């Protein structure tokens, strides 16, 4: 994994330079535009836009995680067991909703701006996290559960000290999936006036400036790969600690 790690540190360094001093890449991006077009996006500060993009994703996924994990805990307790098949069905149906449609349908209720994007990312982020938390909580090793009951743990103690720690790697895999989807979907939020990197890409699309499209796409792509990899690494470390395999290994 050494060369891979080196490559990622290098990608991160390039990304930071691109965000802090975009003009340093002037000559590179000039290759993709006609001489009359600006090679670097200057209608907004790339760093600000990227931070705003990350912020929207972080808030949305943070909320999805809280709601999805609580719901999954609820339906795996005895008093919520009745809701388990239904919630599974809803999660399945929800996954067929295209993100653009969710975004577009949120606009009539919330108007233009960041709010519909947040809602769309939140809703779309719920399902993978919910599904994975369910998987994590329903596939716990039976002997461990038996032992925790045997030592006299209460339901709450079992949940916080046994079930959640054991399910954590799988929950994290869900969060990773949601985050990567949200990073890409947030770009579409620019069509409803949210401040995300989609702004740069759409500016490129409407003026026929490939360099803008490339900048926006590259930043989102590199961010997604880096975040995906760091979360995968965290998952593997946790999985090794708890001795469980994650879906990521498949």
């Amino acid at each position, binding site marked *: 994994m050494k060369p891979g790690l080196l490559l990622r540190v290098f990608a991160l360094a390039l990304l930071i330079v691109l965000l802090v001093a975009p003009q340093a890449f002037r000559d590179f991006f000039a290759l*993709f535009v006609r001489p009359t077009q600006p090679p670097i996006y200057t209608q907004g500060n790339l760093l600000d836009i990227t931070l705003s993009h990350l912020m929207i994703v972080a808030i949305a996924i943070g909320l999805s995680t809280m709601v999805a994990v609580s719901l999954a805990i609820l339906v795996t307790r005895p008093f919520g067991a*009745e*809701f388990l*098949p*239904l919630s*599974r*069905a*809803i999660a*399945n*149906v929800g*996954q*067929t*909703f*295209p*993100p*653009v*449609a969710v975004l*577009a*349908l949120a*606009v*009539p*209720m919330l108007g*233009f701006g960041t709010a519909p994007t947040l809602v769309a990312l939140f809703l779309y982020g719920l399902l993978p996290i919910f599904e994975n938390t369910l998987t994590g909580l329903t596939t716990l090793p039976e002997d461990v559960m038996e032992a925790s009951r045997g030592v006299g743990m209460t339901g709450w103690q079992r949940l916080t000290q046994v079930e959640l720690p054991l399910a954590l790697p799988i929950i994290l895999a869900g969060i990773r999936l949601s985050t*990567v989807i949200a*990073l*890409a*979907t947030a*770009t*579409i939020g620019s*069509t*409803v006036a949210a401040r995300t*990197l*989609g702004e740069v*890409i*759409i500016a*490129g*699309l409407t003026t*026929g400036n*490939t360099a803008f*499209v*490339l900048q*926006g*796409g590259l930043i*989102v*792509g590199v961010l*997604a*790969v880096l975040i*995906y990899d760091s979360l995968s690494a965290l998952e593997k470390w946790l999985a090794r600690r708890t001795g469980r395999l994650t879906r990521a290994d*498949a």
Partner: protein
Amino acid sequence: MSVTSASPSHDRPHWLALDRLGVLITLILLSSFLLPFALFRANRILLGDGLPLLASMQPVAASVLLLALAFGVGAALLRLPALIKLAAGFGVLTILFIAMGLSAETLMPADNNYARVSPAAGFWVLVFGLALLVTDALTRLRLGPWTRIGILLGVCGAFWALLWSGLWNELSILKEYANRAPAFWNEARTHLLLAFGSVAIAAIVGIPLGILCYRVRPVRAALLNILNIVQTIPSIALFGLLIAPLAWVAANVPGAKASGISGIGVAPAVVALFAYSLLPIVSNTVVGLLGVSAPAVDAARGMGMTWLQRLVQVELPLAFPVILTGIRIVLVQNIGLTTIAALIGGGGFGVFVFQGIGQTAMDLVLLGAVPTVVLAFAAAVVLDAFVELTSRGGRRA
């Protein structure tokens, strides 16, 4: 395959008990009365006035609807057999949809083509609550694949009848449709062509690639990594990035332009959708082939089959359900992603979504978004049923 989950109804104490999910559904249905049922606007882009249920239709229609809703609440609250709950859910939904059409007919002023009536939050909350009732009944019934497809066809038929009867003609979304019916069907064709065409190409290319990855281990890691990275590129960027190279191909490769390749339009859309489709198809092919049981392959080898015979007659048929699952994921995903193709002139339902966003005309957004959701949902139901059918056949064989 139909299973009755509750005991017969002469068992009074059993069905008289409260259904916990029913309580939730009842709360959802009741909360809808706090919200407006219909939205009236003087023209298509103005903000409208929300009207409560009782003010949005004739007293007769309103009382029939209220009665039906009370009946629905009863069916949800009691522990009745799932089949009865299902029938109640569908019945009340039908009445609700008809009532929405009647409400639009009542509210639309005569001789005024600018005014718009659309369903408001209260209507959607009612639909959601009843959909929960239906979904719960369906999950409890554990229907077989053919029955599920049958129900899907029935629901589609009911909707078609509703639209054909003209009951909904006064609703704003159908006013938007009436203004651009030819364009709608044109974009529908493009949408289907883009979504299904790209999946077909991806399957033709992806399954052999998957077989290659399965046989040659070093190729597997490298190819899957590359495809993984392609997935992280945001769709609008990938669509955009393909404009330049395809424009170059159109200008410099003889015959390319004549065959319809150009920088904007359908070509970059198909290529981008194809690129997104490859990973799930390739990786599911690999996973499916790896999952074929070793004794089956051994037996085939023992019978003296060549590797090609083993692949075609044993491994691929056994891996088929998993490969089909990959195709299902991709098809549902591409039906949604095709909306974005409209940004680069690729057409499809996205045209209406983005036009609507541009004009702040939300009914136009719905005209693009609703068919997309319906298509994606129908594709998921049908392919899920096929996956189940093929995996059963595999076990029997």
